[in-house]
């Protein structure tokens, strides 16, 4: 099964067509940031961080996703 194709960087929201350096990856805490932009439309996601994961919502795409950050 192939991963869904993305058009926008989930870290900075810029189009991947001209995405050379990611502003969302250059700061020290980048590895501990949830994805904040929709890979399909580039819109800023609303993100609810929870102790064991996070849930994000793209309003234009009307799509939600849930991610666990705990092994259990």
């Amino acid at each position: 099964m192939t991963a869904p194709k993305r058009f926008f960087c989930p870290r900075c929201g810029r189009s991947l067509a001209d995405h050379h350096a990611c502003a969302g990856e250059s700061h020290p805490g980048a590895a501990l940031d949830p994805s904040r932009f929709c890979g399909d439309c580039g819109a800023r996601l609303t993100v609810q961080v929870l102790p064991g994961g996070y849930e994000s919502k793209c309003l234009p795409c009307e799509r939600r996703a849930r991610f666990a950050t705990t092994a259990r």
Partner: protein
Amino acid sequence: MTTWDPERLLADAERRLLEEGGRLTMAEAKELQELPDLYLGRLADLAHRVRLRYCGDEVEVEGIVSGKTGGCPEDCHFCSQSSVFGTEVAPTGYIPYDQLLRAAEETAASGATEFCIVYAVRGPDRRLMDHVLECAELVHRQTDLDVACSLGILTREQALELAENGVHRYNHNLEAAKSYFPRICTTHSWEDRWDTCQLVRETGMELCSGGIIGLGETREQRLELAFQLAELSPHEVPMNFLNPRPSTPLSDNSIVEPEEAIRTIALFRLVMPSTVLRYGGGREITLGDLQRMGLEAGINALITGNYLTTLGQEIEDDLAMLSELRMPVKTVSKVL
């Protein structure tokens, strides 16, 4: 002329804190703060023994959740939830009750005893008060967790209402020393924060107040913050280390060096021997694999799992770290 004698400094501090039950003066703390790096291990060891003597070996574990994210009208320069800086954090409404309960249950499953609900606001209005009190009741009904909250600047009436409705601890960090605060926030004052902290104590809730290391303050200002916190006699002091957030005024700040973080932790413990000194945000990027050193330099509590808008070390890794250090997790002790 007195000869500078690090051995004497450490011995005097040990006698004062461990034998006499006294407290350090600012002058003594400054001298300890300036000990060369080769004495850092001795300083940390003293702080660890002070922690064990005054607090025991248990570690208090807490989970936190954002009850309302982003859109804050204040301009705290370190905060990605401020609406002033145009950060990547999108504002949300109040957390739905089912999500809130899920967060509480994840926290309870880790063995934690505390659950803190934090709102990105200047202060609460009626709607927020109703939301947080409903959340507190829900958490109490479904778990054994103690509920803390952080709602910004309070009125006396609001503090009383929280205390009378099941909120056992209130967080309101001083964030920085009084002398440095105007450099990191202009929309409210350090005195505003101090006054809320005093109100919390007067209304019977436990006070949780700490700060952030790495905002650009001097070493002396870190000690100033420690002593100002000590004046409040807080039950808990969260120690956060700056995680420079993109688009905030402090986005280009350097990360605090791990040795400096350990030194600061040790000094906070020596200045406040009996407080719950909690690892807050930023420990992962500041200390990395040296996090366990902080637990042997004065820390006796931690926030486990994720934070308000960023991710943290996994809960399982935190519990494994405590197990390896042979530090038991504080358990719930509710009277039935």
